[in-house]
């Protein structure tokens, strides 16, 4: 994969290729400018290896004080723009100071890199992994090239996965009991369940199940909480009578979900909730929110 990054610098062209770049799975990542690009996918403990090509432009030579490649894991808070926090930083020196006249290739390898956190693109926070190549120069400014890559970590199915079952209601008005088959879902999972109507005295128009993401960033007084509704899935149309049970079946595949992240490096958390909403004919909303845990299950096929 040849991504021409930082081509505005006339001095040289730096490109980064991964060893198994042809076969490695690519996943789409949304960039700052809204563009979607495909980036290679890694997981923790993988060896990240490849080659870096430095290609001076025709007839130019690049003088440098050394070439290095860094593997960075960064957390970026948007309200604190530009202030990266690197939780992982590995460096490989590639070259001693000197001059480059022609295309030069440096192989590199970070073996069994510990990458505990997943790449995440949130409302207020971003966690990204990047390879940073720096051609250090004294006065002309260093030439820097970045290559993003994505990290996803797979976990085995949780040993304990209880269903969520709850009875809620408003006295003499509405009593329902709902049940979701699990409390922990993997990202390609299906939520199955049932809603039992024990008492219905209001005229219900419809019932939706919302999947909400709650992202909290910062700590203490500076905590920012952002809640997004990622999915709104209609479960029922019309008014049920007492004794009805309405099936729930929500496929998670179509939604852009991430695993639940708890207190990532003390910087941020991402939690998911199922919000059951009943709307009556006067458009009043009755809802009950339940947290679910999302995790990434190793896909059998890949």
């Amino acid at each position, binding site marked *: 994969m040849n991504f021409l990054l930082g081509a505005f610098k006339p001095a040289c062209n730096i490109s980064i290729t991964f060893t198994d770049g042809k076969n490695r799975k690519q996943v789409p990542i949304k960039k700052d400018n809204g563009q979607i690009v495909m980036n290679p996918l890694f997981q923790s403990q993988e060896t990240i290896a490849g080659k870096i090509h430095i290609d001076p432009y025709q007839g130019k030579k690049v003088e440098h004080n050394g070439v290095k490649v860094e593997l960075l894991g960064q957390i970026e808070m948007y309200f604190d723009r530009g202030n990266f926090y690197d939780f992982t930083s590995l460096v490989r020196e590639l070259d001693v100071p000197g001059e480059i006249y022609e295309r030069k290739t440096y192989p590199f390898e970070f073996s069994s890199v510990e990458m505990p956190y997943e790449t995440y693109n949130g409302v207020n926070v971003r966690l990204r992994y990047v390879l940073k190549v720096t051609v250090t120069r004294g006065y002309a400014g260093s030439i820097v090239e970045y290559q993003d890559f994505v990290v996803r970590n797979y976990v085995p199915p949780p040993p304990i996965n209880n269903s969520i079952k709850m009875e809620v209601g408003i006295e003499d008005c509405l009593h329902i009991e709902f049940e979701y088959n699990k409390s922990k879902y993997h990202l390609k999972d299906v939520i199955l369940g049932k809603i039992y109507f024990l008492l219905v005295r209001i005229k219900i128009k*419809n019932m939706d199940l919302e999947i909400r993401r709650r992202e909290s960033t910062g700590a203490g007084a500076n905590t920012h909480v952002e809640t997004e509704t990622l999915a709104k899935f209609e479960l*029922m*149309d*019309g*008014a*049920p*009578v007492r004794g*009805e049970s*309405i*099936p729930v079946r929500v496929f998670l595949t179509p939604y852009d979900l991430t695993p639940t992240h708890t207190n990532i490096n003390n910087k941020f958390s991402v939690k998911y909730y199922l919000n059951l909403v009943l709307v009556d004919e006067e458009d009043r909303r009755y809802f009950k929110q339940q947290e679910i845990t999302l995790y990434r299950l190793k896909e059998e096929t890949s």
Partner: protein
Amino acid sequence: MIAEDDEKWLAAANAAVKQNAFYMQRAIDSNNLKDALKFSAQMLSELRTSKLSPHKYYELYMRVFNELGTLEIFFKEETGRGCSIAELYELVQHAGNILPRLYLLCTIGSVYIKSKDVTTTDILKDLVEMCRAVQHPLRGLFLRSYLAQVTRDKLPSIGSELEGDGDAQMNALEFVLQNFTEMNKLWVRMQHQGSSREKEKREKERNELRDLVGKNLHVLSQLEGVDLGIYRDTVLPRILEQVVNCKDELAQCYLMDCIIQVFPDDFHLQTLDVLLGVCPQLQPSVDIKTVLSGLMERLSNYAASSVEALPNFLQVEAFSKFNYAIGKVVEAQVDLPAAGSVTLYLFLLKFTLHVYSDRLDYVDQVLGSCVTQLSATGKLCDDKAAKQIVAFLRAPLEKYNNVVTILKLTNYPRVMEYLDHETNKTMAIIIVQSVLKNNTHISTADEVDALFELAKGLIKDFDGTIDNEIDEEDFQEEQNFVARLVHNLYNDDPEEMSKIIFTVRKHILTGGPKRLPLTIPALVFSALKLIRRLRGGDENPFGDDASATPKRILQLLSETVEALSDVSAPDLALRLYLQCAQAANDCELETVTYEFFTKAYLLYEEEISDSKAQVTALRLIIGTLQRMRVLSVENRDILTHKATGYSARLLRKPDQCRAVYECAHLFWADECENLKDGERVVLCLIRAQRIADAVQNMTNASRGTSSTGSVALYVELLNKYLYFLEKGNTKVTGDTIKSLAELIRSETKKVESGAESFINSTLRYIEFQRQQDGGMSEKYEKIKMEWFE
């Protein structure tokens, strides 16, 4: 206004459907699954509307339905192109809105079943379960209707290529049953939607949707492999459970009817007690009679169409089950109007007549049940009930076409007791008409007794109710029926016949003054007929103590006719007396004959005062008396004398004259030698002529009025003379005749008599007789007149 909006919304929805369908089609053409799903979901979203009335919604649904057909084919092709159907099945479930999602799911589901990738059962279960999510009655109904529609040709059944095992079949059954149950629930729930003011309208709309629900039952009935056992153990109980539990009048009514119409007859027959057992559990407002009548009608037809089925009817004791069920229904529905319960019994009766036409005891039992029911309600007063009960009583009549059979039904008259007078009469007419129409042979006195008991409404007035509004003509018509009925009663055995007559008499005499004049003649003549028959036999075969002697009967008749004279119908009574006298004469019962004459005379003297009536009566008396042969000379003399006396005392002279010359016949009986008193004949004629003269004088005195009368009288007299001349009365002389002729001629010359043609005919007759050979011309020789020269 609302209808207009309706139209507008429908048009808008239709347009949207059309547009999305177009895009969908385009996506399909370019094999773009994602877009096809997207646009189909958008198209289906139009069905989410709440604005349309069921009718309009149906139109919209049909439009969408047609488009979904294309989609189904597309799905099928898509699976052929390697897209896993399971994936598709999941994919359609990503749709955010429930209604489009479920429509798509049903569509793909039907393809899934066909593909044989999975067990049909699982898919069916899933579909029917998922459809629960639409709780809106109208939308839910249509969704489930769609489900039923797309799966119906794919349900597994015996021999089906999909899955042949019994489990799958039961599951298919379960699927349809469940879908039916849910649909019915939704349908029933519709009535609670919206304001109570529009209830009526809503019920109407609901009624329009009922076939959506009923279709499920149809599918069930078409489902292969549903045999009697499954039907009895699974299908029917499940359906009925739903029917009972929904507690909705409209639904119960419709579904019961549906069950009855959709499933085969022999199923019904074998599950009769189950089906009937449900009836009392239905809502009180349900029109059970329609339901039951439908069932009975069906079974009746079944029995009629296949003879082999009949033993089954006996085997399952269909009758007693129906009878019991109806009893239960009537019991359970306390406020069932009389008309309703009678209708029920009517249908039971019809059923019984159809199926068990030879079981009179059953028929009687139905009647008995009806009596029990009626005894609770008392006399029937409302028109509807009366109409029903008439139909009820009419049914066996029409079936058997024989009143005698009806008479064997002991409960029949008991039912009639509960009719009001009007209805009772109507019924009586029907019964009598049936006898007349079918020429039913009623031949025993007991039957006759029973029959008249039934026809009481015609025979007599009811206590205290004298209807003044009765149309005279109708009344006569009715009584004519009775009279005709009397004539219809006949038995070859005179003994029995006389008993019949006695019975009839007993009943008829209760009829009251208005009826007697119309009915008694029939009785009298019927009796006279019998007398004539008795006389025809050589001798009385019964001995004297038998009732069927002419004397006894005549005695009876005498009393009967007397009843008539009491009710101011003397003319009629007189005639009947004379008829009786004739019969008595024929039987050579002198005293009886004399007795009758006495009575007739008395009547004449006491009751008949109108002069015209007198004339007629007198003529009858003379005519009858003339023919009497059994009377002794004295008795005859007395009677003759009296008659002549009456004649002379008539009011109008011409009447007098005529009566007197008629009396001449009393002294001359052709075939009886000792009854030829020529002299007295002539005396009579002379007296008559004298009266005629008086008439002549009177007319001359008051000239100008009617002068023809007297001439005519003379001519009539002339004819009488000629008659006796011909008969050989020697006292009639040529001179007398000649002088009379002379008189006529002179009178005719004086005035226009108007009797010329009569005279001429008479003269021609004389001329003719004279020219005959033999004795006749001889007799006429004497009256040679110059008139003829």
